[in-house]
């Protein structure tokens, strides 16, 4: 549940538990049973490329065929819940101008530095059993819905009109 109380006893430096829902994303798909070899796959992964982690930390909950899912939707197979990925965010930029602009460091032939720390990342959610159950129930996969839930930091998320869940693309991989 969102904003249910923590059971830890109060102690110095302990703040109220806080969760806030972010702006979700829904992908319309139309993958019929035949496209997924009638559920004979051994593993199915949703892969999200270019995931932003410059803002708050958050959980992204993945629901299948449940476009109206919210942060209060139970995380059960019956509700189409397939799993989550978690982002450890940087909270925003505390450096000087340009500090958090992702640049091309590490890409030139003689640039041996690693990539910029805020280079968007890749996240993967294995959805094998949930996908099999949805296909058995509905016959096809029509929607993948992501519900982001941030860990605190209301100032950060409210200051971001685009929402803190940002990524470049989503792919579904199945393996026989």
């Amino acid at each position, binding site marked *: 549940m969102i904003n*249910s*109380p*923590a*059971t*830890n*006893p109060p*102690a*110095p*430096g*302990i*703040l*109220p*538990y*806080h*969760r806030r829902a972010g702006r979700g994303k829904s992908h319309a798909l139309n993958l019929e049973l035949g496209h997924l070899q009638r559920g004979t796959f051994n593993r199915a992964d949703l892969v999200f490329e270019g995931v932003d*982690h410059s803002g*708050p*930390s*958050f*959980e992204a909950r993945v629901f299948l065929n449940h476009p109206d899912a919210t942060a209060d939707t139970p995380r059960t197979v019956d509700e189409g819940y397939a799993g*989550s*990925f*978690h*982002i*450890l*965010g*940087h*909270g*925003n*930029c*505390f450096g000087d101008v340009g500090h958090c602009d992702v640049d091309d460091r590490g890409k030139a032939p003689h640039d041996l530095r*690693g*990539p910029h*720390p805020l*280079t968007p*990342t*890749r*996240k*993967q959610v294995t959805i094998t059993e949930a996908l099999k159950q949805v296909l058995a129930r509905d016959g096809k996969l029509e929607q993948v819905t992501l519900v982001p839930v941030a*860990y*605190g*930091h*209301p*100032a*950060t998320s409210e*200051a971001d009109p685009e929402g803190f869940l940002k990524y470049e693309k989503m792919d579904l991989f199945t393996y026989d």
Partner: protein
Amino acid sequence: MAIRQNIANLSAADLATWRQVMTASKGLLDNRGYIHFAGMHGLPNQFCQHGTPLFLPWHRAYLYMLEMAMRDINSAVALPWWDWTSDDAHTNGLPAAYTDASVAGNPLLSGETGLPQRTLQRIQAQVPDSLDFSVNPPLTVRAPGPPDELPSAATIEAILGAPTFADFTSQLEDQHNQVHGWVGGSMGIVPIAAFDPIFFAHHTMIDRLWYLWQLRNPNGGVGTVPLDQALQGTPLTVRQVLDINQLGYDYATKVTTG
């Protein structure tokens, strides 16, 4: 050989030693002290590696550097781990050693950042609930979630069964992220997470899980990571952190009889 133990299993004497060393380390404001090492991870140095195959090797080297500095203070000390899959964690949340305010000056409750005023002002303006700004200097804070939302033992057991390093590190880092967010507050954002002492108990757990995976997969390697890759901020390469015994530590196991 330093033997890292579960924080829940430390004897009263060992816990007292751990607190004494943490207090002493916090009191060192030069490059031997806690603030220096915490500042290697996020602000001001930002050496940490996340979302890459260097996540586990880099943090192993990082823990080693802090542990060695602490062993310079007291050679009997080793970093303890917080088992957030345990029944105690799923009932009570944070480990008692890190929340016990009845211990005078408990150094495990929170930490200073040592960051310059200008940086602190930016943090306060953008993420005001990430530090306790009512005190000077500001201290780390936590906003823990419901204990039963911590990763379960079954989840971690499944991850330990990952067949490749790439699969294992990807899944384990995701659980790691979840625990950072669960603790919340300062732990919830990369730049200041390591100033909270619970950070190191959490990461020692992560390092232990990598060790357990290595035991199951002695030829598991580190995927595509070059073995001679430097781990920034430390004198170590990936190759040098593959065997924890070569780094002078091991993890305790608990055997219950009767």
